[in-house]
Structures are given as C-alpha cells and as structure tokens.
C-alpha cells in the first residue's frame, strides 16, 4: 500500500532527524541561552530555556519535514486540475495527536510549576506577599535592597545600612538579596538582565524578587516598561563584589550621601506620591 509507505517513510525521516538534532540542541545551544550564570535565578532560567528549546526542536522538525515531504511528493503541476482522494479524516491519527499534544502541554505545565516554586528560577516580581520566602525560612541572612524607579532613573536604598540611598547598585556575592521594587511616578520595570530578575515598579506597590548573585562581575540594568520619553536612556550597570568590598563600598557611600539622607523621607516599603504634587 503506497499511502502507508509514504507515512512510514516520513515518520522515519522525522524520528532520525529529531534523534540527531534534539540532543545537539540540548547540549550545544543551552549553554549560550540567556540570561547567564551570574545568579541562581539566571542559571535556573537558562535551564528552563534549554528544556523548552529541546522540546520545540522535534516539533519544528515535524512540521518543516512534513511540509517539505508533501511539497516534494504530492505536488501537482500542469494546467489540468486533478482531484485528490476523498479523505475526511482519520480517527486514530486525530486521537494520537490530541493525546500526545495534551500530554506534552501537561508535562510542560508541571515542569514550569515545579521550576516556579523551586527557589532560584522564579526571578519575576512576586508582589508584597511572595510565593516562596524561602531564604528567611532557611535562616540565611538576607540583604534587603530597595529599587526605586522614577522618570528616568533607578535609585537604590539599603534599609539595613541606615536607609542609604544611592544611584549605584552593588551586591555582595553569595548572599541572598531581597529586592523591593517600587516606583514614585509611573510603571517602570526593573530588569537586571544578568541576575535573571525582572520586576515591575508600580507606584504604591512593594514588589519583591529574590536572587542570590553567584559570581563577581557586572550586569546590565534596564527599564523594561515604557515610562515616558527618556525610557530608552533609563539604564545603568550593577556590580557584584565580594563581601569585604561591599562593606567598604557601602561605608563610603554612606559618607558621601549622608548630607543628602537628611532630606529624604524615612525608609518605607512604598512612597505614595501626593496626587497633587511630586513624590519625594
């Protein structure tokens, strides 16, 4: 029977191609996927992206090889129109498709949920009541850092260091950080690319994201939500340093910004702007 031979041939081509391509993608592409390994969140998201790419590979191959196959084998040229076979469907094939696609989707959902609940992959802002405040539960010493978005820059407050406010973000390596993201005016989004953290800065909202930087280096900080005309210029560079340098740096910053600090409002989870005026 020719029809089944065609399908068998297609199936073999696809299975062989997938068997070759999928491990190659998983092994060689995953290490170059974003966002990086500068922090636990970033490394976790890289694994997620790798898994999704590995799942997508056979799917892409299925459709592309199918299209190529039908266009080579079943293409009809010439002026005369020829009728094809009157096939209305195939219950078995449809059932296989429904079951397989449902199974893949359910597996992806299960995997995504597990990764989201697992500390060190979530990376997104979790709002004022985070899903998994794991570090505090583990009894680790957490460094709270407040990220304040305003048109058009981020500033950072360290409440455990006398409410110091500085335009630079410096984090110690290896210590869990609790980022409290908020805004003074419009919606911004704090995107620390290398850390694998993105959290919207909403006025009046304390949006919490956890991350543990895992190696010394720098990372890009950008605003990822349109916030007005200078949105494109709202970026800076954060630094991850060792514990000792961090202490020196923060003492230096406290000295520099001490005159400014007395005019700032006391540290608070949010700073509600006065509806009639400017926020402080």
């Amino acid at each position, binding site marked *: 029977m020719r029809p089944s031979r*065609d*399908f068998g041939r297609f199936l073999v081509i696809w299975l062989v191609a997938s068997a070759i391509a999928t491990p190659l993608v998983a092994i060689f592409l995953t290490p170059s*996927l*974003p*966002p990086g390994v500068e922090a636990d969140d970033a490394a976790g*998201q890289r694994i*997620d*992206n790798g898994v*999704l790419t590995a*799942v*997508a590979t056979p799917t*892409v191959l299925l459709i592309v090889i199918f*299209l190529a196959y*039908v266009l080579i084998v*079943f293409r*009809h040229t010439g002026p005369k*129109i020829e*009728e*094809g*076979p*009157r*096939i*209305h*469907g195939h219950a078995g*094939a*449809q059932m296989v*498709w429904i079951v397989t696609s*449902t199974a893949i*989707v359910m597996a*992806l*959902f299960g995997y*995504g*949920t597990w990764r*989201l609940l697992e500390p060190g992959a*979530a990376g*997104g802002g979790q*709002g004022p*009541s985070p899903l998994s405040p794991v570090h505090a539960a583990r009894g680790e010493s957490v460094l709270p850092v407040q990220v304040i978005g305003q048109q058009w820059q981020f500033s950072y407050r360290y409440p455990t260091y006398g409410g110091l406010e500085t335009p630079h973000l410096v984090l110690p390596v290896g210590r869990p950080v609790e980022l409290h993201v908020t805004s003074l005016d*419009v*919606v911004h989004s704090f*995107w620390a*690319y290398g850390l694998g953290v*993105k*959290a*919207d800065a*909403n*006025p*009046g909202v*304390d949006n919490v994201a956890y991350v543990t930087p895992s190696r010394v280096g720098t990372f*890009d900080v*950008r605003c*990822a939500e*349109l916030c007005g*005309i*200078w*949105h*494109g210029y709202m970026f800076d560079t954060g630094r991850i340093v060792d514990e000792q340098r961090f202490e020196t740096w923060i003492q230096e910053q406290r000295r520099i910004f001490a005159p400014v600090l007395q005019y700032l409002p006391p540290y608070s989870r949010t700073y*509600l*702007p006065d*509806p009639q005026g400017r926020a402080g």
Partner: protein
Amino acid sequence: MTVLARRLFGFNLLTAILLAAAGFLLGHWLGDRIAGPSLDYVASTGENDVALALGYLLGVVGFLVGLGFANYPLMRMLGRPPSLPRPETEGIGRYFRHCPDHKVVGLQYLVGVGVLFFIAGLNAMFIRLELFGPGQSIWTPDTYLTIVGLHGSMMMGVMTSAVLGPFANYIVPLLIGARRSAFPRIESLSFWLLVAAGFTLMTTLALGGFQTGWTGYAPLSGQGAYGIDSYVMFFALIGLSMTLLGINLTATVVTMRAPRLNWGRLPIFVWGVLTTAAVMVLAAPVLIVTLVMVLLDRTAQTSFFVQGAGGSSYLFENLFWFFGHPEVYLLALPGMGILLQLLPVFTRKPLWGYRLAVSGMLGIALVSFTVWQHHLFVSGMAADLRIFYMFSTELISIPTGFVFVCALGTLWRGRIRLTVPMLFCLGWIFNFLIGGLTGIYQSDAPSDVTGHGSFFVLAHFHYTIMGGLVFTFFAAIYYWLPKMTGFALNERWGKVHFWLMFLAFNSTFLPLFAVGFLGMPRRVVTYPERFEFLNQWASISAFVLGVSLLIFLANLVYTLVIARVPAEANPWQSTSLEWQTTSPPPAHNFDRIPPIGHPHDYGRDEGTERPASRPAPAGEPT
C-alpha cells in the same frame, strides 16, 4: 446639473465632513464653558482636555449624522415611516457614502484597512530607520515614541478588522447563501466609525503626539498632553466599531443561513469568522469602558487609575489585557479560517478533520478569556495566580494544535497546486509555527522573565500577527479579489511578492528574537553597540519587506487600473457557494440559492466503498 446637486446636497461625505467640523467646534466651545481658564490646571498648561474630548465626541456624532446614520432611528422615534434611500446598485458614488450593501462595505473596508495598514507600515519603516544604529540618530525620543505608538495602535486597531471587515463582510453572506447581512446599517456604521477613528488618531500629530505606546498604561497616560486624548478617542471608536462588526457578523451567521445549511455544513471560514465575532462582541466593550475611564481620569478628575487616591495602576493593566488577550486571538482565528478554507481548494481534498478544526477554533475562543494575566507575570500582582495563568496559556496550544493537524492532514496525499494564495497559506503554517512555539517561552513564568517586555516578545507577536494574519490576509486578497472585483492579480508578480515577503519577513524577525534574548527592551530609542549588527540586519530586511509590499501595491494598481483583464468565473475551480454566482455578484447575490451540500467537497472516491455524494457541479453561474 440635477445629478450634481443630488450628489452635493443630502446625506453624503461632504455633509458629513462639514457637520464633523461644526460638531468639533461646538464641543470645543462647550468644553471651554464647562472647564474654562478659571481652573488652575487649564490656566497653567493652556490645555483643556474637556474641550478637546467634547470636540471629538460631537465631531464624530456630526460626521455620522451627516452620513445619514440618524435618519432611520429618528424617523422611527417620531413615529413616521422611515424614508430609506433606495440602495444604489452601481456607480462609484456608493463607495463614498452610507451604503447598506455588504459587498460595498466589504470593499470600503478593504480600502480603509489598506490605507491604515500602509501608514502603519510606513511607521514601521521609520522605527527601523531609527534603530539602524545605536544612539539617537533620526528622531527625537518623543517623536520616536509617537511613531512607535502610531504603528502599534494603528496595526492593532486595523488588524482586528483586517479579515472580518473586508472578507467576512463580503464573503460570509455569499458563503451561507444569504442575500444581505443581518444588520446592514450597523455593518456600514462599523466601517464609518473606522474612518472617524483613523482620522482622530492622525490628529494626534498636530497635538504633540502620544508617548505611551499602544498599551497606554496608566498612570503614564495621565501625564501626557493633548495627544493622548486622540489616542484614547481612536481606540474607543475602534472598540465600538469592532463590537458592531462582531454583532452584525454573529447575527448574520446565526440567522441568515440558507435552508439546509446547518452547523455541520458551515464552511470553516465562517466558523473562523463566527468565533472571532463572538469573542469581539464580548471583549471589545471592555476596551471601550477602560478608555472612557482613562478619559474621565484626564478630564473629569476622577481617579480610577490614580494610586493613592483610591485607584490602581493594576486596574488598568487588568482591564486592558482582559480585552487585550482575547484581542490577539481575534488576530489568529480569522487567519486559521482562511487557511483551512483555502487548503482544500488547492489540494483538491476535503478538509481533513472538520469537527476537530471547529472544536479547535471554539476551544481557542473559549480559553482566550482566561489567559490575560500572563502579561502581568512580573508585575507583582497575584504571584500565586501565575501557576493558573501558566496553565491556561499553555492549554491554548492544544486547540491551536488541532488547527495545525487539520492543515497537515489536508495537505497529506493532496494534489497540491502552488498558486499564490496557496503559497501564502503554506507561509502561514511555517510562520505561525515559530510564533506559536516562541509563545511557550512567554507562557512559562520563569522563562518569561527574560522575554517579557523585550524584543523577544516583539518578534513573537509579529510572527503570529504579521507572519500569521497578514499572510492569510494576502492569501485572501489573491483568492477573492477576482470575486470582489472581477479582475485577477498577476500570478507571476504575486509569486515574486510572496517569496520576497516571506524571506524578508523571516530575515527581519528571526534576529529580533536573539536581540531580545540578549537584553534589548522594547520601545527604546537607543541600544548598546553590541546589538548593532543584528539591528542593522533586521533594518535592512525590514526595508526589503517594505519593498515586497510595494510590489504588491504595484500589482494591484496594474491589475485594477491598467490591465483590467476580466478573470475567469471560477478561477480556482472552487465548489464553495460564493463562486456559484457572477463575479462581482449582483446586489441581491443569488437569483436562486444554490443547493447546499457538504462544505469543502473536493476529491474523488477511492475504490467503491464510498459513493459520490456531490450535489451539484460547480461552474455555471445560476
């Protein structure tokens, strides 16, 4: 002379424009009386949003009254018999006025959508020009953001009607054997609202533009100057137009089907239109309400979205995406309908798995209302709910898969003819595959952290909208233009158009996935130098993409204006109902409704196990 007088006086476009101007001035004057310069904020900024908003409102009302939309309801209210104008059956004049013929409205929509698509596409070229190099090169940041906003809002506003406006309005009554649509005046109103909306949006250029993008997030939208009001008014009018369009099409499909055309025999394109129209009716009103709230925040000093005064910026995000996410499926479903309608014609096979395809479309329509918070994964709102929205979003890939498998099954063992419409359909399969799979990265909450708000998500939705909907839009133009105008587009130039567009499109947007993954956020006027090569590649490809669309435009003008070679009566040898009448059809569509058989009835029986059951041979117009 009398002909000229009849054209000039009465309810026509000229009267409409005059009344629109008068309405605008009246509204503006009224607004100045209501909130005059005595108010501090008006005095200090010199801008009175109340006056502008009322001006727009009365301007639009004047425009519609001038076109004659008030005649029927007013006469009814006064208890007089409505003096309906006799529908003009020929002449170019009927395309410039309120005409209740669904075929006229379809062509009006085609031109209207085309014009807005052209302007929005031009804006895309301007964006790529700016992003050609790092650093600010061509536009100032506020001009650049206005261009970005115009491109986004115009495309989003127009693409929702891009298939439903021209093709559903024109073809669906023919496909279901109806002589008119259910609500002809509402149908015409939905088109003229689109015209009013487009004009309103363009006035933003004279008012300083709007720097909020098409999403117009509060509280940013509360900050901006006059230009925001035109954006808000535009989108509210588009929402109204979409709602009316959806109401008419839903009612037409439900009530106007020919005898014996039961649900199991509905052509798949009609299913695509019906599901889209139903979702539109349910989702678009939310948009209108949201924008009215924004307008009230800006004019009447309410505080729906003002944090600290009882409002919340989350409220806006929720309302906007409650409309916004069903809306992006409004951009997918019509394309799927066209795809599955055209594949059987060019494979000479019945649609493979008709019921599976219908359940796929119904499934997408249903689940589309439950996914909106995946836009807010990193917003900090309801972190626990991320699991549910991850589930519902990934769930939607199951019915989408149904549509794919039906397309693949139809191709299998067909007699595939690579005509231009078929090429665009195959292009859809490839592009939507990429668009759909990259959507999985967005639905997975940890992965979405990188993609969200970056060029990755931008490339993703351009793959589904430009690569999906626009490709099937062109398939529909090549396929149905002989029906709508009686002239067929040049096949060879059509193929040049397809290949150039397909390659340039992929070459533009594939690198943008990488740009986003490497850390470039959307809507930025500048970027680090390490993204320069990929951005230049994308820009050059985008210009080639623009050229491919100009080739289409040249082909269109050549076919319709210069060559004017009449097309065959049924150039694709289709068996569906719209080809059983003349091209273009007479005002009443069919002299006699043709017999209704199974949809997509192609192919020959293999062996003898299944008797041939085709009702009437296609061909001779009845």
